[in-house]
């Protein structure tokens, strides 16, 4: 048995996988997000660990025999989050998360101090990444910065609690802006630009390698057998890729979760930072990947459901399905930049908008606008990947939003590719984490990293694409008109 632990943004999910590729049980625990100031996003590392332990207890209660047969654990997690530890591995402050936007000024400083940063790190400096956050702490919380002995990413904090060891892994480390992504090793130059050094960093392993063993005290508390190994694991996107078998160059997926990601595996480091495309290591050796990231995706629909007082997302989508075609053509345009935007605008100040409200606009119409606006954001991302030379014909669709056939069809028509939904796709990262555990326990990649069976195929619909194209032009025309307004804060 293999245990996958995925430390997401809104919940931590644990998954039990058998060597027959069966998922025996899944247990999740919700995680609250804290927004103490506009643009801030934080979580408590202790709360991560407590939620993980609670989920482990429920999983064990659901499948006691399988739980007792766990041989290896794999970890995946929300990327970029900065967890600051003192010299005794105590947490110094709440973790600053991937969707926190406070460190915009620090990005400019970093880029000025280190002009080679995009080439080495494979990415533009953006407030979501880890390094600018540490510069912010150095500037605004200098006492804490002085006491910082180690910086860990979220899943690596869980690993510390599990194994007592501070170990990082390539795909997640690539999101810090401290990694020389081509060489798969820390960059002293990039660390120095932040005022840090190698000693602040964990040692690095590949995602399918052993990073440590579960501490006896934890094994006892959780009911694990002794000697369970913990694999390097992967950032949530890389782990999701492993979960749906996207391990070879040209494979890829779209994830419609809290954030929206287009992910394609590459056989070499192919950076194109100018288009705000990310180039990271994959969680498997000698492979990299390109990603476009939109900061707010399926979360936009959850947000709209609360706003309109609809009972739940399903009933709002049902109202949307009942709309006639003319209502869709007159629907407002939605700019999905609720938390600013990464690809393609790299603008932390951007915000969302509904443009073109009229007397006939209803909650159901707004739901369509959100689905379409998020799809257009992903189309912008896809265009950036294509401009970087990446060619794709088919992508899997994973994440919470993948449950909606309307969304899948919008994406197929908008992006002009075949979309394949993967059943059980919501468990993508947790499944990928479990698989990485399996690989660390000497599993064979061909046996372990299979693509899911079944799933629905969505092909581009030319008539739908015809209708979408003028609306996409309006979508693209809107942000330039509002960009300066977003930037001029009172």
């Amino acid at each position: 048995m293999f245990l996958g632990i995925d430390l997401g943004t809104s919940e931590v999910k644990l998954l039990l996988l058998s060597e027959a590729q069966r998922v025996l049980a899944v247990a999740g625990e919700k995680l609250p997000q804290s927004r103490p100031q506009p643009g801030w996003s934080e979580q408590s590392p202790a709360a991560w660990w407590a939620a993980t332990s609670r989920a482990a207890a429920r999983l064990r209660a659901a499948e006691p025999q399988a739980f007792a047969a766990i041989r290896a654990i794999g970890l995946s997690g929300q990327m970029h989050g900065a967890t600051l530890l003192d010299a005794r591995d105590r947490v110094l402050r709440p973790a600053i998360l991937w969707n926190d936007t406070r460190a915009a000024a620090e990005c400019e400083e970093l880029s000025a101090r280190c002009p080679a940063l995009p080439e080495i790190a494979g990415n533009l400096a953006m407030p979501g990444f880890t390094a600018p956050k540490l510069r912010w702490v150095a500037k605004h919380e200098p006492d804490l910065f002085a006491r910082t002995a180690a910086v860990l990413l979220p899943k690596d904090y869980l690993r510390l609690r599990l194994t007592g060891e501070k170990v990082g892994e390539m795909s997640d480390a690539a999101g810090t802006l401290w990694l020389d992504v081509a060489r798969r090793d820390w960059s002293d130059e990039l660390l120095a630009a932040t005022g840090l050094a190698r000693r602040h960093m964990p040692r690095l392993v590949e995602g399918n390698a052993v990073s440590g063993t579960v501490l006896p005290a934890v094994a006892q508390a959780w009911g694990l057998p002794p000697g369970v190994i913990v694999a390097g694991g992967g950032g949530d996107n890389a782990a999701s890729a492993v979960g749906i078998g996207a391990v070879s160059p040209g494979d890829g997926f779209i994830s419609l979760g809290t954030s929206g990601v287009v992910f394609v595996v590459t056989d070499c480091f192919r950076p194109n930072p100018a288009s705000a495309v990310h180039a990271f290591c994959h969680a498997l050796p000698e492979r990299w990947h390109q990603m476009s990231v939109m900061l707010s995706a399926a979360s936009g629909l959850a947000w709209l459901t609360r706003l309109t007082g609809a009972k739940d997302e399903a009933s709002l989508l049902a109202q949307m399905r009942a709309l006639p075609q003319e209502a869709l053509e007159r629907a407002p345009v939605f700019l999905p930049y609720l938390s600013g935007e990464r690809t393609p605008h790299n603008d932390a100040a951007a915000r969302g908008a509904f443009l073109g409200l009229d007397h006939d606009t209803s909650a159901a119409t707004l739901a369509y606008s959100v689905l379409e606006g998020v799809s257009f954001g992903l189309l912008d991302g896809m265009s950036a990947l294509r401009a970087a030379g990446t060619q794709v014909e088919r992508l899997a669709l994973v994440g919470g939003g993948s449950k909606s056939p309307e969304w899948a069809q919008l994406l197929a028509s908008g992006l002009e590719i075949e979309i394949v939904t993967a059943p059980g796709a919501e468990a993508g990262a947790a499944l990928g984490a479990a698989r990485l555990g399996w690989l660390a326990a000497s599993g064979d990649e061909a046996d372990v990293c299979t693509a899911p069976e079944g799933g629905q195929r969505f092909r581009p619909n030319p008539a739908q694409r015809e209708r979408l194209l003028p609306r996409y032009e309006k979508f693209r025309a809107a942000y330039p008109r509002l960009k300066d307004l977003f930037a001029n804060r009172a």
Partner: protein
Amino acid sequence: MYLGLDLGTGSAKALLLDANGATVGETSAAYHAVSPHAGWSEIDPEIWLQALTTCVQALPAGARAAVKGIGLSGQMHGVVLSDAQGNALRPAVLWLDTRAVAQLARYPTLADSLKRLGNAPSAGMAGPILLWLAEHEPIGLQAARWALQPKDWLRLRLTGIAGSEASDASGTLLADRQGRWDRSLLETLGLPDRLLAPHFASHEAAGTLTASLAAALGLPAGIPVAAGGGDTPVAALGSGLLLDGSAQLTTGSGAQIVVLRHTLPAPSAKLNCYRTAAPPELPRWYTMAAMQNAGVALEWARRTLGFDWPAAYAAAFGSSLRTDDELFFLPYLGGERTPWMDAQVRGAWVGLSPGTDNGALMRAAFEGVAFAIRAGLDALHAQGTRPTQLRLAGGGSVHRAWQQLLMDVLQLPLEAVDCPNASARGAALLGGLAAGHWSTADLYALAPACRPVGEPASVRYALPYRRFCDLYARLAGWFGRDGLQTEN
């Protein structure tokens, strides 16, 4: 008793005043315009007459027998083509109609039109509508004896005499600044001037009630029927807006700021300027900022956000609201008139973040409507009209927090005047004037009471208001491209 009859946009009203000006009865009956083609707005005038008959017959028979004078008010700008007896030859074309856009090219330049007519040419007015009829229904136009505004058509049926008056005429784009027919303009446009009826003074009798209509309505035959006026100026009269410079804000579906002027106001393409329906001692003109989306935008927001009204106010103005200066609402669900004169613009919420909840969005909607009204007030300022306070029609029933928001955004003190059915009341007053029962001097005492509401308490909206206008300017051209907006 004095009877006021009002032909509003959505309903007819009848209102009875006793000799002291107290309301003794009021009734109404709704009707609906039809749209046989996109952008058309028409109604069979017989439907108006039936609705009014229903209203009048619902008043107590004894009171009706005691009526000594009738006054009229009606929706402005539209046109009824009728024969000499007042039988309509086709449905009336109403002020919301937009078919006559192409005909605007026949008018003089904007500068000349403003100078001569006091208003920018627009499609829903009698002049352009008659040009359209001349082009598309020439035989029908030839056969018509009269082209009348709605209340003037009503009066023809009531009295057998065709007449017009200055306030309604000034809203046709066929009259000069004094509200007299501009016969040379008619000649230039090629419209037969026989179609336009002779003027009467709004407050004087323009005929008497015929025996047959008297019988149908249960009213005494032979009583005077005042010329009357357009619904907006007659409502001003009815709600006691009588002094030079006095200003009133009405927020219904849309919002209007009406300011009375004793001297001829400078014309503006962003404002409307018409004759009043008052006796000659009172101000002769009013200048008006007309904003398209007020109550209608708030109602839309409330409905979309899933609130009932008490919850909407509580969420928008309650102490638990976390205010957000980055969140804006453009209320322009149906385009906008004053000041942008932009039929293409639509509504928007801009500045959304994950923490934005429905209370913040409702608050933004209230602020957006207030900002849109402020933009209308600024257009008045630019024209040289600077009210120092505003009466708020229906102000007594306006929620306190919304009143304060309006004062803080407009930076003006407000007085509340409560006068439901102000047009019908004003019409009844005109009936009393025409019958010789009241004189101009009596109008002051007959005015409904005005109660101060308060003063502006904050200047915090100065910057958000400028950013609202900046937001409109940035987005204005975006709405008009093909593919997303239908013609409107």
